């Protein structure tokens, strides 16, 4: 879906902004290598909107308390998810699941399913209409059915994966400790 615009032809939304400056930092996301979703650099977006069962919204609100408490554990173990949001939308008739992650989606899907089934199933069983459970053979077709591609997506530092960011923070901390020691 990405729009390629030549620098010379571009006319900015705001006449007070320079076309050169905008085009210098402009990102051109491409489609994920194998499936739906956009990708820029080492990052990709996953957006999913599924119908909610009657009564499912109340069930979800009850379960999401534990879901939130455990989110950092499960997503942290995955090691590739940069951010994730799950929202009930459209008067509780649909649920939105949107994530930014590094790596490709498809190669890891079986590993993710094997690992994250308890957490995802806890939140979605009986909530997502037709959700078969993550370990079901119908799980991937279900995800594909309701996955949508972002029309616009931006990611800062697109070349830095979650692991790169963690490593950079660690190096920065060690370097600052070194400088602190040298200074004292």
């Amino acid at each position, binding site marked *: 879906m990405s729009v390629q615009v030549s620098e010379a032809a571009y006319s900015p939304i705001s006449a007070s902004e320079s076309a050169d400056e905008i085009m210098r930092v402009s990102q051109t996301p491409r489609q994920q*290598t194998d499936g739906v979703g956009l990708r820029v650099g080492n990052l990709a977006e996953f957006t999913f909107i599924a119908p909610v069962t009657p009564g499912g919204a109340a069930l979800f609100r009850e379960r999401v308390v534990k879901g939130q408490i455990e989110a950092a554990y499960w997503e942290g173990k995955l*090691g*590739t998810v940069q951010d994730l949001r799950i929202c009930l939308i459209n008067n509780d008739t649909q649920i939105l699941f949107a994530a930014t992650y590094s790596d490709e989606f498809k*190669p890891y899907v079986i*590993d993710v399913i*094997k*690992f994250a089934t308890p957490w995802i199933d806890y939140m979605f069983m009986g909530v997502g209409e037709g959700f078969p459970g993550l370990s079901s053979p119908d799980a991937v077709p279900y995800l594909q059915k309701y996955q949508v591609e972002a029309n616009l997506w931006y990611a800062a530092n697109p070349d830095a*994966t979650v692991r790169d960011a963690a490593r950079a923070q660690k190096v920065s901390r060690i370097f600052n400790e070194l400088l602190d020691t040298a200074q004292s």
Partner: protein
Amino acid sequence: MTDSVLDATLEFDDIQGTLLRHRPDRYFGAYILYRIDDPAAAKSSLDRVLPHITSAADWEEPRPFTLNIVFTFQGLRALGLPPDALESFPTEFRLGMAARKQILGDVGANDPSNWAPVFGSEQIHIGVVISTTHEDALQTPLGLAQNMRGVTILYKLDVGAPSTGREHFGYRDSINEPSIIGSGRTPRPGQDSIMPGEFVLGYPDESGSIRALKGAESFTRNGSFLAFRQLHCDVAAFRRFLRANARSKDDEELIAAKIMGRWRSGAPLMLAPERDDPQLAADSERVDNFVYESDPRGLVCPLGSHIRRVNPRDGLRDTIVDPKIHRVLRRGAAYGPVLPEGALEDDGVERGIVFIFMGTSLAQQFEFVQQVWINNGDFVGLGREKDPLVGSNDGTGTYTIPALPVRRRLTGLPGFTIVRGGEYCFLPGLRAVEWLAS
């Protein structure tokens, strides 16, 4: 599930031999690719070849040659597999290897537009793999293969163990491979035991479910998918790179070992960290018996070394990835003459290696290994670093060798291998070949 239970159920006499059995160390052989011109005549030829196809039964018995046969998606269609059965085959197989170039990292010099013209053309329908231990024994199987009617031979590649007994870069090859539960073989120390459904359709896989293609269960039973890949080896570039980056002759060998994860003899760095140990390399009980638990930072065996990428063993314990569902069976065979020892300039002669990778999911096994482990480094915190030996490097890559007090980093990594072509195939059971021939 115990080995003895599965021993009774793996149908060795229906499974093609190359799937379960290793080729000998000394070998001669050929890979032949065909286009079907006349399906009826091709079926008759298949019928004549059928009795000569080698099954996995009685593999240890002496035999003059082995012959195995594979079919591409186009080939199965040309031979009349019904549309609903064809539809049950996975997308990647239907599309073929060239169409998966972004996933496989086949860009730049490796782009399918640079492959031998026959590859990626949808013209390849059938492939035959022949192997012998004596060159003169090739005559009979080659006669069978070359006299097939209703087909045109599009490509033929002669292979044979190099005179050095090692692959072209100088390493001893084919040391590690998974042990298939139910294959009737006792795993060697260090070999990982994997459920048969990961490699043979119709059997339980690592999840405990029977791995099968819905809608084509009967035709695909005892079959597997196979990725055929021909790689040119730029041996001179490899030698120059070692020379340019080494501090001494011994250091050249150390860098070569750090790139592979094994010394050229085959001795693994994890068991021989300082210097080569040919005695260890020759000991089949020890040569593959190691894990990475004691080396989480890769100080002994670099995290990005070839063997640690293609089979991370216990090295991904802190991640969600289960290496057992991403294992492939690999059969390699070298072609072309050895570059004379010490030569640092290419002699213009074509040489390389043909790999066949087998498993019941091209996407989950071959493509995963290629995409996530070979052509990326993020899975072990190495950013965009690729496999130093077979990754799609282009002269801009780096290779990190962890060391104390500071790591060593090799830069300007060129591509030492260049893809000459490849295709996705299906290796059916013998009853399925019989059906195709009927």
